[in-house]
């Protein structure tokens, strides 16, 4: 799958960056002989510069884009069979577990947020969905839904994307400063069990998917804004 290959590429590059940084530290600590150290430093510098931030952001935004597309498909798939009236009758669930995070509500606000904050927000949101995705994945297998297999596969894909995107963002945030690396902790308190009866389960499932859709869109938007901000040399993209 295209998404997987891109994930891998992004992950590899981020790994490279990570190793590059770690290697740098270890090298400095070990105090290797002068000649070797020099050569190693030069090599690492070259490696570190191998992948520019620009490109990393581009890759990250592509992955987040895929994540959001997947989540949108999931909700559509759920709605295709879920009777709408059922949803209407039930009371609207509580807000998403990530609603506590303060995110910009309009464009002006979003454009005023600094890059580091944007990165932090994205990473926080991404981190907040690791556990819920696992819950969704386990629940999708026994979901009382005709398209549960497709849903389950999509959720698994989402998990993979999320993992690789998280790794890449870790590397990116490392380049952007300590504030970018701060992650707000947004625990998921929904528990592993979505409910007992079919309607409850489906309702909760839908709700979680809608929250995911929104949060993935947020992540995607933040990263795309970051991308355009960093792409001074490529104005044609923005």
């Amino acid at each position, binding site marked *: 799958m295209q998404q997987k290959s891109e994930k891998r590429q992004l992950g590899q590059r981020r790994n490279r960056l990570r190793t590059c940084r770690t290697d740098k530290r270890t090298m400095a600590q070990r105090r290797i002989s002068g000649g070797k150290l020099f050569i190693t430093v030069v090599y690492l510098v070259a490696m570190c510069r191998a992948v520019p931030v620009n490109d990393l952001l581009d890759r990250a935004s592509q992955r987040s*884009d895929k994540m*959001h*597309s997947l989540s*949108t498909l999931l909700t559509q798939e759920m709605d295709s069979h879920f009777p709408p009236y059922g949803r209407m009758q039930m009371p609207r669930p509580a*807000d998403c577990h990530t*609603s506590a995070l303060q*995110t*910009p*509500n*309009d*464009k002006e606000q*979003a*454009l005023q947020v600094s890059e580091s904050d944007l990165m932090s927000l994205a990473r926080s949101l991404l981190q907040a969905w690791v556990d819920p995705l696992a819950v969704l994945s386990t629940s999708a297998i026994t979901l009382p839904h005709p398209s549960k297999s497709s849903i389950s596969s999509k959720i698994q894909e989402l998990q993979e994307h999320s993992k690789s995107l998280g790794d890449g963002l870790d590397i990116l945030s490392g380049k952007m400063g300590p504030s970018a690396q701060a992650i707000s902790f947004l625990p998921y308190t929904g528990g592993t069990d979505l409910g007992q009866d079919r309607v409850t389960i489906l309702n909760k499932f839908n709700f979680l998917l809608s929250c995911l859709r*929104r949060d993935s*869109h*947020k992540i*995607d*938007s933040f990263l*795309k*804004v*970051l*991308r*355009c*901000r960093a792409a001074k040399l490529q104005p*044609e*993209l*923005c």
Partner: protein
Amino acid sequence: MKKVGEVVLLWLLILFIQNAAGEGYSPPGKPTNISCRSPEKETFTCWWKPGSDGGLPTTYALYYRKEGSQRVFECPDYKTAGKNSCFFSKNVTFVWVNYNITVVATNSRGRAFSDPVDIDVVYIVKPNPPEEVVVNVTEDKDWPFLQVSWKPPKMADTRSGWITLFYEVRLKLENKNKWEEVSAGQRKTLQIYSLRSGGTYEVQVRCKPDHGFWSEWSPSSRVKVPEYFPQERSMWILIVVFAAFILVIFIWMVYMNFHSVKRYLLPPVPGPKIKGIDKQLLKSGKSEDIFSSLVVSDFPPTTSNYEDFLVQYLEVYVPEERELIMDEGKDLQDDSFKTENSTCDNDSGRGSCDSHTLLTDKGGGDKEDGQQSDQEGSQAEADTKSQEEALEEELLACSHENLQSSNISNEKEKVKSWPSLFSPLPQYSLSPVNRPNPPKTGQQHCLSDSLFTPNSMPSYFTQPGPSTRKGFRSNYWECSFDHKQSHPLHPQSAAHEHLQAQNDLNTAHVDYMGAPLDVHVLNVRPSEYVEVQRVSVEDGVLLHPISPSQEDSRTLSHQTEDYSRVRMVNNDNGLLLLQRDAIEEEKSMCPYQEDVVSRASITPTLQNSVTGINTALPILDEMAASGYIDTATMFGLPTH
């Protein structure tokens, strides 16, 4: 009365109508199809479809509630977006917030609530079409193409990355109906190639956000492509080169097979090949001359000299003598050799000539006896002298007879005369006639052996069984012998053999099959040997010397390895045997030979040691051991 009735009726009608009208008022229908769209993710507009108005003026109001709040707001702007719409400005637009929108239709009779709709602004983005679509026709070496460029819609803020747009271009010929769509990604320019010369194109562009709806198509931009000739030079060059290549190959093939092709296309017309008719004469058209030429004076053959028709050739290889007496006695040669045994010739292998077995068979034991008594030949040689003469006569007679018979039976055979023959024996020439038909049976056994020239004897000379002794040579020989010495020959089977050997040699070159043999010049390797087939193990030919003493000496001396070559056959049926050059002893016979030669009218061209045996038998030196007689030419029994 009628008037009152009418008035009442009319009033009733009016009341009825009024009532009807009045009861038609009803609450408005429910507005439906609420759809909202945001062009830039900063504002959005909702439209609804009003229901029936119930006959009364109906007002519509849109109320919305934001997620997490129970406060209800009303649409701030009903006008900007047109009728039945609500425009949400930037101030009231928040992203990532669910809006719960409801439209209420109100009239005097009541109100109707539409179904609420939840929307999130970020999910309903539908940008405006791209703007400033510019289409240029760019000339590029007679290959024009379209250069399309556009700008994103003004409202969409793509610069900051708030909105990411993907573009799509479509174009079609003006008078066609099919659009061709080309995706341009996030770029804002596009080149379109492969245009129709002289066509007018319509180009449209649209865009779509990363997660949203496609915009409407931009207005068509028309452009006319200038006339140009698609000079696909490369293709034409390729075609021309390929055709030229094919043509070259074709011509070369025709050239290589010109003749066969010519023969195939224009088969050769056989021209008239009537003997005596001249083509030019035909063309000239003189009928008298033509017809006169048709008359062959000498047809049918009236002469009894059938010898004229049979030409026999004997190839005689003379090792030393260079010149063959071709000119001399060619007629004689023809006469004498025409009917010679054609079974044997120089070209034939060993089996081509009369073999000793053949000879034995033919002789009916005579040869066998002769062969067996090869060693006894010396004894019999004593009487050879007289026997030789008898042989000679016999040969002559036989040859004559054979000639006559052969003329009939062996017309096919064309035997060339040996050029080296001095005086061909007519009987010898005739004797081969005795060969049985068909000659192909190869019954002639050549006395030739491997020592013969490598000229391959006709392979058709097979080793006949004893019963097939009637090869040329054998016939020839035996006939000659028989005729001459019917009985005397018996004891002198050796002589038989000798003679036969000689004959074989002589006739070795006769073309058994009828194909004329080339006259062998003496320059040819002169080692033609006739292999005398004998019943005895020995294969050797005892040549009875002219003189018993000589013979004995010769035979004795030649028993081992001497070869006698039949030098020629003179007219007198003289058999001239040429002895091998290597054998010096034979040279001793030279003087004797010379006599023979002289008698045989041997031309002085004889150079080599010609062991001519003047008499038939004695002339024949036996190369006993080898049993081969090197008869370079036909030998002729010299007539004493």
